């Protein structure tokens, strides 16, 4: 069994590296603001985590069908009938900014 100290070191020694620029690109895709110093920190920790993930390559999975869900279930269908009542006011009470039943965001069309 590969575990704790040895496992961790093995992971570190063959750590895949991920660059600061890649981190910035991923952060933008995920809409996460990062400053320069944070980007460096995440480059280090994400590289370590990717190193851990690379352990997956130890097993040949050719021909194995991917498992998306533990019960291999299909989504249920239901009657096309209303199940919810209108609770707009209640739900909008927790929104940061609303007006006339609409959610307000910064102007997107000039």
């Amino acid at each position: 069994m590969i575990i704790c100290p040895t496992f961790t070191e093995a992971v570190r020694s063959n750590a895949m590296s991920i660059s600061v620029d890649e981190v910035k690109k991923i952060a933008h895709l995920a809409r996460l603001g990062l400053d320069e110093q944070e980007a460096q920190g995440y480059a280090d920790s994400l590289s370590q985590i990717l190193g851990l993930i690379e352990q997956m390559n130890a097993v040949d999975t050719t021909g194995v069908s991917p498992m998306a869900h533990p019960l291999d279930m299909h989504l249920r269908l239901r009657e096309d009938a209303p199940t919810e009542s209108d609770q707009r006011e209640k739900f909008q009470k927790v929104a940061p900014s609303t007006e006339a039943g609409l959610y307000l965001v910064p102007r997107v069309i000039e």
Partner: protein
Amino acid sequence: MYRKTVAELASALATKAVSSTELTQLYLDRISAHQELNAFITVDADNALAAAKVADTRLAKGDAGALTGVPMAHKDIFCTDGVLTTCGSRMLSEFVSPYNATVVEKLHDAGMVMLGKTNMDEFAMGSSNETSFFGPVKNPWDTTLVPGGSSGGSAAAVAARLTPMATGTDTGGSIRQPAALCGITGLKPSYGRVSRFGMIAFASSLDQAGPMTQTAEDAALLLNAMAGFDSRDSTSAQEEVPDFSSQLGHDIKGLKIGLPKEFFGEGLSADVDKAIQAALDEYKKLGAEVVEVSLPNSSLAIPCYYVLAPAEASSNLSRYDGVRYGYRASEYTDLVEMYERTRAEGFGAEVKRRIMIGTYALSAGYYDAYYLKAQQLRRLIAEDFKRAFEQCDVIMGPTAPSTAFALGDKSEDPVAMYLNDIYTISVNLAGLPGMSVPAGFDGNGRPIGLQLIGQYFDEARLLQLAHQYQQVTDWHQQLPEEVA
């Protein structure tokens, strides 16, 4: 009175030995006397006392169920109508939910009294409760130690008897690992057994709610109230729900316990190993048979999980955009900057790490190497269990590789933290039910958990095995000195 189990409290209420109002006040007082544990994010004394009054009326009228009037606490991941629901995050630090989770509704309908909401790792991402925006929870056995996570507040609260039971959720070990580290009983049911509706999503193909209690008997009572099909959860299992208490008293003669040899190798602390062997000896005395089984792909469960769970999380957490609910940054010039600042300020470091790992794994060019590969491994891991269960009725082993560690010890080292869940994660990947029960203490007096893993929807078997063990041991009755 505070040392009593849910079952004992229910019978004290039924015989009018105590009222729900008295019990509720007793636990509220204990919560306020042990604030240093930081186990609660919200204590809802007014509503609790009002609910206790309603319960007392029902009890007086003879209109009470098995759990009416018994106090409890919810992990702060469950939406509670009109009550702060933070998920341990700044993002939801002022979010008052406009609706109830199904689990909340069910336990409320059963007449239970909610004392408050327990602390947790942010969005349930963590194994030490140190990622909470509301600060770490302390382990009642030694306040310099972590309680485990992510349901650390629930585990600490039950261990210190600040509540007779609490709910938890388990995506990779978040019920079982803190239960082990705090010396309580924790059950993660089969995937789909308990509704996920209103349970704030982390990784939707893995998340499952369950009870955290003092005993297996209590876990059975609580699962009876929590389980069942729910049309509002698209992956809710359409399985018959048995009476989980009915099998508790059956003897376990002839049952086969499978020991995965991979769970007893390098990395397992000697004290934990010894306690697990001693627990197995008890099971043999009770008439069970022990056989060796193999889960050859179990060492890949952590790498596999750290692709799948972050991938699902990156998608689930995209909903926090500062538009419809939750935190919004105060300064921005346009919409994209509003999203980026809101999410930068609203999420903590571990949540951001996992969102980024997930985004990376799902991005064009990497999907096959990471996400697809992980899904294939998930199949292999699930098939390992299937083969093992051809040889045994239940699988047992340690819940965690070591006992509780010091606060701050691993918080700067994500990979070391992830390895805490080495024995629990594969159970979530397969979707099986798993349980942790107290099985002794290490040389420093820190609790050790025995893990039981069952076949799909066979929670009754796990509960029976745990209950029978608790009839011949008293680990589950021991209490930290500080709070006794």
